[in-house]
């Protein structure tokens, strides 16, 4: 942004803003909210919905405040009769092509178009209702995302999200004029195209045109079935996001209340994905060290850099876009799937329950996890390892359905077994967290000492830069790891698939080389996941990240290998990391998919 300031008046109040500031941003500075639909802070400006029009004194036409930069001497009216009337007509025109049976819509009560219709008192039906006359398609083919064209207002936020944030462009604008629609390649079903199921489009859709496929009814049925033992696991980022659905400001940690609520909902056992996040670190850390040993000592050809495999959107992205790098992915299942496989084996044995009577539910900040749970590889227990995946939003809705006054709930601890976890597991929810957790453990395995960062906080891998790099010099190795003495471990972290794409291209072309790369499909990592509360923006994601790191600092144990339940499971069940049993239950393989 330029240093040159321009002076203008908005609603007769003078304001001075840097050159290049839009009218919308300038008005915000004066606390005037201008309504928007196609505008989103995370995305480029499109200026196609027109709902942000304002009056410029002396100009013939109304201006789109999101797209027009403030200029010297401008006089803007954001709330003149002309503006209000124009906005009302624009909203009515949008509604004329929108199936506005709001009570039947999943987004009812959390819809930007509905809010504006209310604000502008839209009640006259000035225009013909075209939504009923058109033959819209509703695509339910994906296990994660429902695309309902009858609710689409063609603001194209989803198209820009898929392109600018995710680098995928599974969705594009097709046709023009009244026939314009948001389409996949040749209008193929979502399940068959390059969609990674990340759900970032859902997070930014202002209406109900893109929503997650919900499994709430199935979960209620399982809970109400007396013959079923229903276990639930909660992902790290849910505990810092759920509050937003239930009345809290972003950044509230509601772990204990969430556990209480889940117990009140009737789940038989409330357990923690964080437990298997710790387990992931044991398996993945050992896998990394094994790969390094093979490369450095045995001079074997192994795939390096190794890449994390926790984020199912990232996995599917890689399967579509960089199938030549599938060997580089860690073979570790995601914590959700490790948990699923263990729930119907280890947990079932320990608790003496027939696994066929166990229903395994997971609460995830993620829509891609719904797809992941349905992958045919994810049946190592002999059953579908995770039966139902609910998003943070769906859990919020269930809590509301149950009439639970969430804010007044007391805290409860997780049940055991598989409920114990460390701070290293919580930070899986933030970009860089898996890397940090892995380094905390791997460094200590190799040197017998704690990672040399103040208070275990490996700050170079934290933050919101799209791609971050760090180097950790390994010194003072234990004898069995002496081959790593003096090695500078080079790591990289990327979040948002557009950043991952850049990084992968550089790795592919041999421009950059690393030992270990963490990628999370969603901007900010899981805390900004496609199943997290709506809205999202950088400020909200930063608050959620602060909450994650506060949760980590508040934990008595902050290194995965110190989790006592982890010791127990290796002792009683798995043997050691990368054991035969581990491979059977906790590791997987990947499938090349079509890019085009």
């Amino acid at each position, binding site marked *: 942004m330029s240093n040159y300031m321009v002076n203008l008046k908005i609603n007769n109040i003078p304001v001075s803003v840097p050159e290049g500031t839009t009218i919308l941003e300038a008005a915000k500075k004066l606390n005037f909210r201008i309504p928007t639909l196609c505008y989103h802070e995370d995305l480029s400006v499109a200026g196609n919905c027109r709902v942000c029009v304002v009056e410029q004194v002396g100009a013939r036409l109304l201006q789109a405040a999101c797209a027009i930069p403030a200029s010297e001497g401008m006089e803007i009216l954001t709330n003149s009769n002309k503006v209000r009337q124009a906005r009302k007509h624009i909203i009515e025109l949008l509604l004329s092509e929108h199936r506005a049976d709001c009570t039947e819509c999943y987004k009812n009560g959390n819809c930007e178009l509905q809010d504006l219709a209310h604000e502008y008192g839209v009640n006259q039906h000035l225009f013909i209702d075209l939504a009923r006359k058109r033959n819209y398609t509703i695509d339910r083919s994906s296990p994660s995302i429902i695309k309902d064209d009858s609710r689409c207002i063609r603001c194209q936020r989803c198209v820009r999200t898929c392109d600018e944030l995710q680098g995928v462009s599974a969705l594009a604008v097709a046709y023009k004029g009244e026939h314009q629609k948001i389409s*996949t390649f040749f209008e193929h079903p979502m399940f068959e195209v390059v969609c990674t199921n990340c759900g970032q489009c859902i997070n930014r859709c202002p209406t109900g045109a893109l929503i997650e496929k919900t499994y709430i009814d199935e979960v209620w049925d399982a809970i109400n079935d007396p013959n079923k033992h229903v276990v639930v696991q909660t992902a790290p980022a849910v505990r810092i996001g759920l509050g937003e659905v239930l009345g809290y400001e972003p950044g509230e940690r509601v772990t204990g209340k969430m556990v209480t609520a889940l117990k009140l909902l009737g789940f038989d056992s409330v357990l923690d994905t964080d437990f298997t996040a710790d387990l992931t670190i044991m398996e993945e850390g050992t896998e990394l060290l094994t790969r390094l040993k093979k490369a450095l000592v045995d001079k074997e050809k192994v795939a390096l850099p190794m890449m994390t495999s926790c984020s199912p959107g990232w996995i599917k992205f890689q399967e579509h876009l960089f199938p030549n790098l599938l060997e580089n992915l860690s073979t570790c299942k995601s914590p959700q799937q490790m948990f699923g496989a263990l729930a119907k084996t280890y947990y079932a044995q320990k608790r003496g329950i027939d696994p066929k009577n166990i229903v395994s539910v997971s609460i995830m900040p993620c829509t891609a996890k719904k797809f992941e749970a349905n992958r045919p590889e994810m049946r190592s227990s002999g059953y579908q390892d995770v039966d139902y995946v609910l998003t943070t939003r769906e859990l919020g809705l269930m809590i509301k359905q149950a009439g639970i006054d969430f804010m007044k709930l007391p805290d409860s601890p997780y049940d055991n077994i598989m409920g114990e976890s460390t701070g290293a597991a919580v930070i899986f929810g933030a970009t860089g967290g898996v890397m940090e957790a892995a380094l905390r453990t791997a460094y200590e395995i190799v040197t017998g000492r704690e990672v040399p960062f103040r208070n275990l906080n490996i700050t170079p891998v934290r933050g919101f830069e799209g791609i971050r790099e760090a180097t950790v010099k390994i010194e003072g190795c234990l004898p069995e790891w002496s081959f790593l003495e003096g090695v500078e471990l080079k790591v990289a972290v990327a979040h948002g698939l557009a950043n991952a794409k850049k990084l992968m291209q550089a790795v592919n072309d041999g421009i950059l080389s690393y030992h270990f790369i963490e990628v999370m499909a969603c901007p900010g990592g899981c805390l900004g996941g496609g199943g997290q509360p709506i809205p999202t923006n950088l400020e909200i994601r930063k608050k959620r990240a602060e909450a994650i790191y506060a949760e980590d600092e508040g934990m008595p144990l902050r290194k995965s290998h110190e989790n006592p339940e982890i010791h127990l499971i290796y002792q009683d069940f798995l043997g050691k990391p990368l054991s035969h049993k581990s491979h059977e239950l906790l590791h997987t393989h990947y499938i090349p998919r079509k890019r085009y």
Partner: protein
Amino acid sequence: MTDIQEILEKVTSKYGKQRSALMPALQAIVKEKNYLSDEDIVAVAKTFDLSTAEVYGTATFYTFLDTVPRGKYVIRVCKTISCHMAGKDEIIEALQKTLKIKVGETTVDKKFSLLTANCMGWCHKGPVMLINDEVYPELTPQKAIEIIQSYQQK
């Protein structure tokens, strides 16, 4: 029929592989093959490192870039207001009767496709239709039928 790779090589050698060469590429394919197939769009996406959805979106935006197979002769009747007032509905009706197809369809012998198009800039001589690149202004239903008959004999 020319191979898709051949067409793309020709286009990229002239215009490069920037996104700006996408339109000439799509136009060249339609010129050679009369429409853009599924496979053609995949080949274009690979060449220009774009997503298939993006190429499909671009293709569908333009009336003259077809994404379904068309007949040897593509008839496009102007549907915009001047031609509408000059009687384009009667022209379409006559064409539909003669060809025994509806707007959007192709004859069984794959010879004719009947489509509508937006303004072609012949408002002063409407109603107007295009057959491939040939313009036929000041139509009457009878005139339109005779033109079609002359094509049927080709």
